[in-house]
């Protein structure tokens, strides 16, 4: 059943509503069911989660008798952003994932909405927040976990059938994310990054949906058949090399995203179309896996080109 989680009236004949769809067992609820919440669409240009929300529900409907708990699906935390191809919250130029846990008393409209979302998600037995990088970078399916939540969350992340679990160091600024707000108040949330902004990568979506069923089975929400999940690589910051553009230009990749690369192998060239020359050839500093690769060709000095997991 579709519920409205938070609502704000817009000036001219329109309401902004944050929806969730709640799926429950055919036999109804007895009160002690586990609850999983699937969340996406915080950034309006990240669409990979849209397919996951659809496909997850389609498969649940196909085997409704196996549903033993509550599945809450929140496909669009930033509906104005999704409908206007805007990453942040239109009208405010705010990154919605920097305003949690929100504020109902003295904040702006997005902070009011954020507070309603946090209140509704709180108490879930597990949440999965699906992101899709941005329009610049393509990511392999991965879960990112704050170092302080490592022990609690890594075992669950390994069930999600993803390729990689990145345990990153705590940064103060990340304390204003949805995941931090929930994890720090006792509601576990896994953050998935996969694919690229403004696109759907169906293969990655199917892979993650398989994993969500594994996670649901572990939580006692699903008792149907599930796959054996991939065994992801788990790493900390020290094993990740960041490759940034040494100068401005047009980046042309020579590696394939998600492939292995050897030290000193060519990642790609930064070219100068005006003069028809290569400005810089970027070589890999390590042997490893190209888990992040630039999709958007225009780069300024410093733009992220790739992240390589040393292997």
């Amino acid at each position, binding site marked *: 059943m579709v519920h409205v989680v938070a609502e704000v009236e817009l000036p001219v004949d329109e309401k902004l509503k944050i929806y969730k769809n709640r799926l429950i067992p055919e036999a109804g609820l007895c009160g002690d069911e586990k609850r999983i919440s699937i969340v996406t669409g915080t950034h309006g240009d990240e669409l990979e989660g849209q397919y996951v929300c659809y496909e997850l529900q389609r498969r649940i409907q196909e085997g409704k008798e196996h549903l033993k708990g509550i599945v809450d699906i929140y496909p669009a935390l930033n509906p104005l952003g999704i409908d206007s191809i805007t990453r942040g919250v239109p009208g405010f130029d705010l990154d919605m994932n920097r305003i949690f846990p929100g504020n109902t008393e003295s904040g702006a409209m997005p902070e009011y909405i954020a507070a309603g979302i946090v209140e509704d998600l709180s108490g879930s037995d597990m949440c999965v927040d699906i992101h899709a990088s941005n329009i610049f970078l393509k990511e392999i399916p991965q879960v990112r976990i704050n170092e302080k939540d490592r022990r609690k969350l890594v075992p669950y992340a390994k069930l999600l059938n993803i390729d990689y679990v990145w345990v990153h160091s705590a940064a103060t600024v990340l304390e204003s994310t949805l995941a931090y707000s929930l994890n720090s108040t006792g509601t576990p949330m896994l953050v998935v990054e996969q694919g690229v902004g403004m696109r759907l990568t169906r293969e990655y979506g199917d892979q993650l949906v398989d994993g969500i069923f594994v996670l649901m089975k572990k939580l006692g929400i699903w008792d149907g058949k599930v796959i054996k999940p991939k065994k992801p690589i788990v790493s900390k910051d020290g094993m990740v090399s960041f490759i940034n553009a040494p100068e401005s230009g047009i980046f042309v990749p020579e590696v394939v995203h998600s492939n292995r690369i050897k030290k000193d192998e060519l990642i790609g060239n930064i070219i100068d179309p*005006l003069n028809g020359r290569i400005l810089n050839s970027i070589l890999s500093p390590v042997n490893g896996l190209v888990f992040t690769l630039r999709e958007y060709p225009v780069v300024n000095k410093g733009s992220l080109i790739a992240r390589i997991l040393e292997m």
Partner: protein
Amino acid sequence: MRKKILYELSSIYRDNLRIKGYIFGKGEKSACVVGAIRGNEVQQLYACAQLVKALKEIEKAGKIKEGKSVMVVPCVNTYSININKRFYPIDNTDINRMFPGYNQGETTQRIAAGLFDTIQDYKIGIQFASFYMPGEFIPHVRMMRTGYEKKELAKEFGLPYVVIRDPKPYDTTTLNYNWQIWNGQSFSIYTSETDKLDIDNAMQAVRAVLNFLDKEGILEYQGHDGYISRVINENEMVPVKSKNAGIFEGFAQVNKSVQKGELMAYIIDPYEGNIKERVMAPCSGTVFFAHDTPMTYNNTVLFKIIEES
């Protein structure tokens, strides 16, 4: 006056982005003033330009104190301001959320690092800043409560209010916060406008900075002393929120008194013209902040009142 390029970045087809500093006096790095970091901060750019103009005259008259120097950085982000875009054009990131920066990181981290490396040695940092909510403020000095803040020093600007803010997580990457943590005292000066010019208000900010530099013994300036500032914590202000969305017709003005129960604004139905809501003052006091765009959402802060003590 000396001009110095503090940081330079090339683009494939645009002219270089250059962050320029204007330096007055010689010797100790006493104070640095930073203007537009975001592309819509035209008022902040204007205020800095007027400050440069005033400092030229002060320096020509020999009134910069021996062994002291002041640097003004009018604009950090020419790439955005020239195309009327608030954040960095390529990736839409906010340079004022990238401090202290990282010189091997992403572009805006590098710009932040390039600027911060050249200004962090200044003993006093002053930023002409803007706020994310659309509206008009009483001109004020804002400081973060980091444990290092000196409220008494902030009063030397002679602006009506000194506002102390408890930093939120996202504040920890602003210039103001990092300046204070890394080296010394930092102050943000908020004038009434951002993307429009309010010349009187900008000049009030310029005089406030010159007053402050005079009181700190960095230069000689004979302006009037300004106000005896009142220090207030941001969370002590009383927010007045909309219960409806629609067209906003405001009556209460910034820096004016309101009485409890007084009409502050109407919210009008955008199709039928009737009054949907009369927004009344919940307490008596001075209007510190007022919404200034013609439309509003519901549950939006329209005013902030400093309650009469």
